[in-house]
């Protein structure tokens, strides 16, 4: 993708509480993966602001795909947590296919919480250049002899671990 895209979404905490009270139906477990549910549990119970932020981030990421007529593949967009505490996006299944179709190579997300809402913004754009391969010859070849197309292919190999597409967020 030559140009960046942004997606944004906001989820009130009350919407999450409403989902939890949805007649005992497992609504949240349809929207959050097992790993996300584990991250959403605290000693005091479910982390409502955290869930709201996670759902907002999923919607924000989905907007990057500009997938008209598609439902949001909730569980295929995982918002996990890096060791440093910032959110990490992992795409799998239909979400990964939508990302490839939209030429989305790299995604960053940021989430903010302030009662009564969580807000998330997602950015997609070209894969950031590593300082290790910053130099690029005029014909498009890098200092290691790789072309931009080679580099993109290699990035996808890196992004796709097993069936998942791992994309760091911040």
């Amino acid at each position, binding site marked *: 993708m030559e140009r960046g895209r942004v997606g944004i979404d906001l*989820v009130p905490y009350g919407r999450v509480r409403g*989902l939890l009270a949805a007649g005992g*139906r497992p*609504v949240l477990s*349809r929207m959050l993966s097992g790993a996300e549910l584990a991250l959403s549990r605290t000693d005091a119970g479910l982390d409502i602001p955290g869930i709201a932020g996670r*759902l907002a981030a999923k919607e924000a990421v*989905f907007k990057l795909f500009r997938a008209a*007529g*598609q*439902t949001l593949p909730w569980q295929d967009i995982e918002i996990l947590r890096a060791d440093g505490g910032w959110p990490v996006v992992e795409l799998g299944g239909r979400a990964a296919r939508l990302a490839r179709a939209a030429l989305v190579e790299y995604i960053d997300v940021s989430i903010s919480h302030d009662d009564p809402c969580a807000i998330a913004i997602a950015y997609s754009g070209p894969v950031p250049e590593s300082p290790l391969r910053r130099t690029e010859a005029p014909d498009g070849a890098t200092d290691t002899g790789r072309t931009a197309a080679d580099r993109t292919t290699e990035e996808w190999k890196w992004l796709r671990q097993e069936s998942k597409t791992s994309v760091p967020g911040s």
Partner: protein
Amino acid sequence: MASTGIEDVRAWILNRHPERDTLSPDENLIESRLVDSLSFVELVYAIEGASGVEIDFDTIDIQDFQTLSAIEKAFFATV
């Protein structure tokens, strides 16, 4: 005559929007923001509950959920 099941779905939507007292069969639920991405999952459960049909989230066709008429045709049609 509309089926009882689709009336349950209509009532479920209207119950979430107390500012509304009517919902026509052909009103687009998504464009009119009566159903958004969060409530869509709940709508699917509401349809399942009213129809007895289990809906596979992975194979959902959004066209089947655009209007009450579409929902009725997809999930409440009698043969």
